[in-house]
């Protein structure tokens, strides 16, 4: 009765080349809508910021919008939006991205803007102080003034990891932010924002030859600087369970999140990929194992989610990373009971394997999510820029639905068997607010 559905694939064309200054370029044309996406990704993120400068990678991302060689403060925003486009940037553990989506006639403008700041941002004391204030408000909105702020992405790393690059708060302490200087920013740019440490991807409605010419014209004279050597942030796995608990004065209900280390997403992709599928087998939708058991049958949690990478970027994160489960519980919820049930369900999966059709339907749903993301020009430009940066394989974006579809039951079972309590880091949030 199980109708097996064929997992489809996209065939976005991919052109790659490297400029003389070391900038790696990916072009992926698709003329089905009159828009283009431009992404520039630098190989530096939260893990690379120095001790005493927590939050600096993110603060620096803000400074990249504050003007550059030919651009006054505010000009970048106005030129993108005045071309009918949108922009943003984001700071991840291993990279920092900058991007625009625009009507196709604005492609050259976006390339000009990105090239201009690749030559160097205008770093001034005034802009630095302004953006420290803005970043503090960002942290207040997202962490300090709301319930469950930073749960679990800022709360779990210090439990799972022991070294500064992996465990520290990527938003940063206000003390560290306040002590940031213009000289710090200059040094950070010099060290990490070399064009040899970056990739550029363009997706959407453009002609490859014309775009190539524009890219050479705008980026070709960005001075070459040596890329820093890629750091290895690996550290030993846990040998015993680690737990932490804290009270959130704004939260009305308890929550719990756990993480287990997973294989190297890049060096050991074949071993890693089953964990991506496992996370969905456990938590994607009402028919998934943990939702069915914990939400529907036991009612011990109100919601549960599972994913890989603290920022949910499973194909854009380097080693070391983790599979996470996070749950919100009803009033009086018992985290230990939830963890015991998770262990029980993992044991059952390992002992009995999957049910008929369980893997195939999960793979089909993952394929939909992957394909859906790639429908947006930015959903191609951004991941392709990161895949180029981290793997030299932007075309892998086309392959992901198929690769997910090739994961076997044996691999899922083997992955589940590694999620043992003694390898688990857990953080519990207790409600500090009167519900």
């Amino acid at each position, binding site marked *: 009765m199980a109708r097996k*559905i064929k997992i489809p694939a996209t065939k976005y064309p991919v052109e790659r080349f490297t400029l003389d200054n070391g900038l790696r370029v990916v072009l992926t044309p698709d003329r089905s809508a009159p828009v283009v996406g431009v992404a520039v990704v630098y190989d530096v993120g939260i893990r690379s910021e120095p001790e005493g400068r927590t939050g600096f990678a993110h603060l620096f991302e803000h400074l990249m919008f504050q003007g550059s060689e*030919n651009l006054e403060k505010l000009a970048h925003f106005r030129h993108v939006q005045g071309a009918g486009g949108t922009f943003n940037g984001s700071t991840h553990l291993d990279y920092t991205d900058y991007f625009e989506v625009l009507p196709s006639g604005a492609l050259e*403008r976006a390339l000009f803007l990105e090239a201009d700041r690749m030559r160097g941002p205008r770093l001034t004391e005034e802009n630095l102080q302004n953006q420290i204030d803005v970043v503090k408000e960002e942290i207040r909105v997202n962490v300090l003034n709301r319930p469950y702020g930073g749960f679990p992405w800022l709360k779990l790393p210090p439990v799972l990891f022991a070294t500064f690059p992996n465990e520290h708060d990527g938003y940063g302490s206000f003390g560290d932010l306040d002590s940031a200087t213009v000289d710090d920013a200059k040094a950070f740019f010099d060290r990490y924002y070399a064009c040899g440490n970056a990739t550029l991807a363009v997706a959407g409605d453009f002609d490859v030859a014309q775009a190539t010419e524009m890219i050479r014209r705008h980026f070709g004279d960005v001075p070459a600087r040596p890329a820093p050597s890629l750091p290895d942030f690996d550290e030993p796995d846990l040998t015993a369970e680690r737990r932490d608990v804290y009270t959130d004065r704004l939260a009305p209900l308890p929550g719990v999140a756990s993480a287990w280390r997973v294989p190297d997403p890049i060096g050991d992709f074949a071993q890693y990929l089953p964990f991506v599928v496992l996370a969905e087998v456990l938590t994607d*939708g009402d028919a998934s194992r943990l939702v069915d058991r914990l939400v529907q049958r036991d009612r011990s949690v*109100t919601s549960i989610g599972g994913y890989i990478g603290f920022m949910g970027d499973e194909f854009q994160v380097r080693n070391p990373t983790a599979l996470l489960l996070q749950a919100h519980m009803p009033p009086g919820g018992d985290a230990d009971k939830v963890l015991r049930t998770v262990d029980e369900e993992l044991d059952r999966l390992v002992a009995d394997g999957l049910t008929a059709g369980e893997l195939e339907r999960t793979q089909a749903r993952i394929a939909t999510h992957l394909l*859906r993301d790639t*429908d947006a020009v930015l959903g191609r430009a951004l991941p392709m820029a990161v895949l180029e940066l981290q793997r030299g394989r932007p075309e892998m974006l086309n392959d992901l639905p198929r690769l997910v579809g090739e994961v076997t039951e044996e691999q899922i079972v083997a992955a589940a068997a590694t999620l043992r309590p003694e390898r688990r880091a857990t953080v519990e949030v207790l409600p500090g607010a009167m519900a």
Partner: protein
Amino acid sequence: MTRLPDLIPDAKLKLPKQVERTLAGGLTVIAIRRPAVPLVEMRLRVPFGRAPLPRATLLSQALFTGTGTMSSVDIAAELQKVGGGLSAGLDPDRLLITGNALASGLDRMLELLAAVLTDPAYPNDEVATERERLVDHIQVALSQPAHLARTALLKRMYGRHPYAVQTPEPEQVRSVRPAQLRALHADRVRPEGSVLVLVGDLNPEKAIDAAEKALGSWTGPGKDGDMPATPELVSGPLVLVDRPGAVQSSLRMALPALGRTDPDYAALQLANLVFGGYFSSRWVENMREDKGYTYGPHTSIEHFLAGSALLVAAEVATEVTGPSLLETLYELGRIASLPPGADELEQARRYALGTLRLGMSTQAGLAGLASMYASFGLRLDYLSEYSVALTKATRDQVAEVAARFLAPSRAITVVLGDAERVAAPLAALTTVERG
């Protein structure tokens, strides 16, 4: 100094082909082909105005709990087999069902949708679970400043109108019985007046045939919610809602606005953009990039069936709550009193025209737009008319609507924050009453 590259003018706005048919049961089906990725997007809006809020909210949460022949797990698993997923939400006018699946799964997704619509069971146990989850969810919302500020603003804007309360009280939800959901479903989940939108890698005629086949048994007269027109906004003292210890204040304002089909709507949207509706607006540049008071201030025009309003929102540091109100009043006063500059108007115009293209560039974006417009009795060709209106709006028109709609004297203002710290600074600027 390198010159900013010119923009290549946009080609004429090209609308995708759409096919529309109203089925015998009264359901309108709109199908649009965009084959970019092998998926389909689905949106169904069912008129739900004036439905009793606690029941309607729980119905939207419990819609997929079971049918005469399927459990919630069955429904979810059957959807997953075709890479599909369905979810439901509620606004004051409509029940909205959202779905997507692999393109080859369209027929099956429609069958499952039909089963949920025509043969709902609302099993007692599952409804009890969803009821508790909804209560927990509302408890969490009640601890979120954005939710609390919106609740206070709606109450102040709409008084005794049904739009004044958009989230039920936990106690009201607790008293809803499954039989009441069955009755509400029978009464209101009806095809007449409902619009189903299908977008993606599909043949529009065949997709509508599939919808007709699956949903042919969904019949019955729709019920007109008979929503009264919204009351005119009446300005008055600033309403201060205490949130002791808050590190930020949530500043909210409501101003009158026009519906999308009003001849002056494009001009009002341009005035909104120049004032605060995008990053490169006066208010955002002032509040964030000059003063550093806030991270993500924004304004937007919110449309309901019975009326529209322009909403202003910023989370500002507690210590600059007074100065933030000052700058906001200043910028409102400026746009209401003086015509916009020619350059800033052109920039806003290009942004409005460009982002309209961006919004149409994905299957999900198109589906959302087509469905949203359809619920207001419009079709995608509205975008062409709107583009023309945006292109033609003059400085004088924009100044005239700004004077009428953006005057600070017309604003309703609500501040959620630490009253002990912000009451006096606010009272220096305006009359304050406690909410």
